Structures are given as structure tokens and as C-alpha cells.
């Protein structure tokens, strides 16, 4: 497939993010307003300058079949192009490409991509997931994503051997990022040890509490426009999306799939081909992290290491901000909090912040690019439903 992003036709000119919070009582609209306000302040733009709006489907507004329109109304926007993306944690990264395509085809000039949710406040019980969830998962005792990842972890353990110490190492590394991230959820801004990980409450074996994200409230977003317009505005601290790959419902025709294999086996190599790069060229890795083992599977399937080598790769690689491959430097979602289905924006925002040189207390020096990923949807005991990869470059 062609790569329309290769010549950098579009640029991210600003990002915004509020601190993740356990139960704020706020709705996604309030968070989106804060995020947009931050970016208007930074750029000097007015809301009337925004003519494109990309949203995702938040759990807190599930059932609102006019969500994007309602969002525009809340923010005082009059978009000429809208997009609602509902591929779960892939949505924030996926919206960049969708907005880029709208911009290069002249459908809009200045797009707001916003992800905000209040899952900590509303819970998820009000959602209507329909289909297999209600009929075939909940009636058999499917308690939630930890069950899916418990089964996946057991399958991985049988095939390759599961090293809990390596996962605990990831937990500690990410928590260290949250300690210096002002937007991390307050409850997680205290250090942990590998032993704390091992000792944390078992939910669905071998998944422990510290393997998992905690759902919360929050929001994040970005402004994207043509590179030509960004430069005409006099902006020079830009971040460019240079390659993107996405897949949904990986290998649907296999009735007995290997659950350890995911769509990253496709989109990882594909994004590197599109960028003309290899994993060795990546300066920072910001993988979607709903569960620690998901990070390890991505490392293997994107190509940082081989299948079954993830544990050794984790234990043998310095993933701190001063290391050889900095990973989720702000704590990832597991230690900064998962603002519902806006969670994919946590990893994404941190990557943009780093490339703009604004990651106070954890800035990676000389990072020219970042690989950001998304994971979406727990399907019927296959691997996850959607996977995407984007390579971002700094100015």
C-alpha cells in the first residue's frame, strides 16, 4: 500500500492533556473543553479556526448516537468534516491518519482530534455491547479483560514460558515514569517494586492487579493541519506522522487461532516498510498498555525481538528515559491511568510531548522519532480486536 504520509503533508501543531482522575463527576465534554483550551492558548488559534473534528466513542457516552455533533455543540465548533472512530484503544492514533486524509483531500484544514472519557465516574455497566458479549461471554462468567488476558497468558506460558519477573520489571519501569508525570493519576504516584507486583491481588490467574490498567476519567487531544499552513503560522515545533498501519479482526477465518498471535504481526512489519525503517531506527517506543503482557507481545510481533524472547529483551534493555529504548516514559496507562476509551491517547500524547521537548523530568535527549501503538476491543477469546502502529517524527 502507498504511504501518503511519507512526505510529511500534515503536522501536529499542539497537544493537550488533563490529569487523569479516579472519579471526577465530569463528562467527556468538560475534559474535551479543557484539552481544546490548552491548545488554543498554546497556538493563539480560536475555536472558529477549527473546521475538522475527530472523536472516539467514550464509554461514558455509549448510547449517545449523536456524540460528535454533541461534542461540536459543547465546544462551539462548526466542523466541515467529522469522524467518530470506535476501534477502542486504537482510536486516538487512528484518528491522526483519518484527519490527515481529510486534510490532504481538502475536506478540512485544521482538525481537532480529541479523546475524553469518564469511565471512572460512570463505570461500564450501562453500555450495550450486544452480540457475543451478552450472549456468550457474560453468561459463562467472563469477568472482564483480565479473563481474556489470563487465558492468553496461559497460552503464552505453554508455548514460550512466562517470566513474571520480566513483567514486574515493566511494571516498575512504568511506575517510575508516573512519579515524574504531573498528569498521572494521583493514586499511582508512589514507587513500587517487583515484589509488590508479584504480591498484588490475583484476579484471573496469572493476571494480577498490577498487570492491569485502572479505568479513570480524563482527556487528551491534538491539533493537526497541513505542514504548509503550520509553517505559514510561524510554528516550528512540529510533530509529523510519517507512517501508519492498522488492522481489525485479525484472521477471522481461523476458528481455532493461536491467541498469542495478534494483528501486530501484520501492522508492525508493515509500518516499517512504509517508513523505510527497521526497529533499530526507533528512538522511543510508546506501546498501548492495557496489560503488561500486551507490551511484551508487541515487542515480539513488531520485531524488537523474536517470538518468545520478550522477557529476555525486557530484562536486557534499559527502557528508562536515559536508556537505549525508552518505553512509555510517562508511566503508560498502567501507571498513569486509563481514561476509558480515550486511553490510547495517553501513550500518544506522551510521544508527542517528548518529540516537542516538553517532557519535564523525563525528557529523552536526541529522540528524533517514536513508535506509538493502539490496541482495541476484547473479542471472543481470540487475541485483541484491533491493532495499529504509527511512526512520528519531530521537527
Amino acid at each position, binding site marked *: 500500500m502507498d504511504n501518503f504520509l511519507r512526505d510529511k503533508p500534515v503536522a501536529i501543531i499542539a497537544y493537550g492533556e488533563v490529569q487523569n482522575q479516579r472519579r471526577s463527576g465530569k463528562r467527556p465534554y468538560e475534559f474535551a473543553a479543557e484539552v481544546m483550551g490548552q491548545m488554543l492558548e498554546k497556538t493563539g488559534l480560536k475555536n472558529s479556526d477549527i473546521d475538522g473534528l475527530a472523536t472516539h466513542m467514550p464509554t461514558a457516552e455509549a448510547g449517545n448516537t449523536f456524540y460528535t455533533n454533541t461534542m461540536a455543540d459543547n465546544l462551539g465548533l462548526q466542523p466541515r468534516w467529522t469522524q467518530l472512530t470506535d476501534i477502542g484503544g486504537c482510536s486516538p492514533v487512528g484518528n491522526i491518519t483519518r484527519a490527515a486524509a481529510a486534510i490532504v483531500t481538502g475536506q478540512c484544514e485544521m482538525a481537532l482530534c480529541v479523546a475524553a472519557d469518564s469511565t471512572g465516574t460512570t*463505570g461500564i455497566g450501562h453500555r450495550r455491547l450486544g452480540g457475543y458479549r*451478552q450472549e456468550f461471554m457474560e453468561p459463562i462468567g467472563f469477568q472482564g479483560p*483480565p*479473563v481474556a488476558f489470563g*487465558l492468553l497468558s*496461559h*497460552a503464552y506460558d505453554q508455548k514460550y514460558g512466562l517470566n513474571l519477573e520480566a513483567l514486574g520489571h515493566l511494571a516498575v519501569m512504568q511506575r517510575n515514569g508516573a512519579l515524574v508525570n504531573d498528569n498521572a493519576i494521583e493514586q499511582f504516584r508512589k514507587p513500587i517494586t517487583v515484589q509488590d507486583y508479584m504480591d498484588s491481588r490475583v484476579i484471573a490467574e496469572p493476571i494480577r492487579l498490577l498487570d492491569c490498567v485502572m479505568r479513570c476519567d480524563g482527556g487528551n487531544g491534538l491539533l493537526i493541519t497541513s505542514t504548509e499552513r503550520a509553517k505559514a503560522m510561524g510554528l516550528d515545533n512540529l510533530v509529523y506522522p510519517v507512517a501508519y498501519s492498522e488492522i481489525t479482526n485479525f484472521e477471522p477465518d481461523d*476458528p481455532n487461532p493461536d491467541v498469542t498471535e495478534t494483528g501486530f504481526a501484520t501492522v508492525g512489519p508493515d509500518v516499517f516498510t512504509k517508513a523505510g525503517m527497521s526497529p533499530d531506527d526507533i528512538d522511543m517506543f510508546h506501546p498501548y498498555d492495557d496489560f503488561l503482557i500486551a507490551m511484551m507481545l508487541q515487542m515480539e510481533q513488531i520485531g524488537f525481538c523474536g517470538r518468545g524472547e520478550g522477557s529476555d529483551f525486557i530484562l536486557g534493555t534499559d527502557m528508562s528515559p536515559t536508556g537505549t529504548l525508552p518505553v512509555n516514559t510517562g508511566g503508560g496507562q498502567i501507571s498513569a491511568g486509563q481514561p476509558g476509551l480515550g486511553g490510547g491517547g495517553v501513550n500518544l500524547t506522551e510521544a508527542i510531548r517528548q518529540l516537542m521537548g516538553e517532557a519535564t523530568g523525563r525528557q529523552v535527549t536526541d529522540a528524533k522519532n517514536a513508535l506509538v501503538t493502539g490496541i482495541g476491543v476484547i473479542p471472543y477469546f481470540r487475541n485483541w480486536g484491533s491493532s495499529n502502529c504509527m511512526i512520528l517524527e519531530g521537527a
Partner: protein
Amino acid sequence: MADEKPNQPPPIPSPSPVSQPMWDAAKEGKLVLQVDPGSGKAQFWPRPVNVQTGKADYEWREVSGKGTLSAWTKVHVPAPGFADRVPYILGSVDLTEGGRVVAQLVNIEDDALTPGMAVKVSWEKRSEDISVYQFEPDD
């Protein structure tokens, strides 16, 4: 997790027009699956199409209900309706005729579980109309 209410019964599935034949058979203690007539591949859960062709050209076939256990997890934090069963075991079963079903494993202790062990379907009656599949050792 946050939605658990104490002592509520386990959920009773609501059949769709597509899945109704499966639940009708379940009531009689039979497991039926949608099968692609061309390749013989079975699919679970029931869908409006045969995923091999994208058309509704599947056939319902009764299967043996036997299979092998590929992976499992012991659940300590229950789903709504399962508080009085904790800890309980959910297993991923690859059926002999193809297709994969995840269900509660019953009549076995977790230390007796082995990868690839033979299991067979059994049924838990939830209502007059609905029996839910479980799996137990096939000795």
C-alpha cells in the same frame, strides 16, 4: 468488576434469530455448530454469515461435544452472578470437529488440569428455555 451486586443469579443469555437453533438444541442436551459445507470448518459463536464465505451458506450440524483443553484461567474476582462460585475455572476448549468454545470447567480441581486433556460438554440449566454449556473431564 465494579458492577457486581451480591447474590444475583448468573445471567441468562437472550438468543438472537441467528443463534436460536443453538439454544434450542442446548435445551435437549445437544451441541450444534454452524459449519462451512465447503471446508468443514465449524464456527463458534453463531454469526449471521459463514465467515469462510461471507454468505449465510452455513449448515447447522450436531457435534460430539468433545474436545481438548488448550488454556485456562482460575478466576478469583467474579463476574456478576458468579460470586458464589469463586474461585472458578474458565477454559478454552478446541472442539474435535473444529471451533473453539470458552466455558466454565466443572467436576475437576485445577491441579488436575493438563494442557490438551480431553473434555466433554455438560449443561447447566439456567431457565426453562436456556441451558448453558460447561465442560468436564472426558474419562
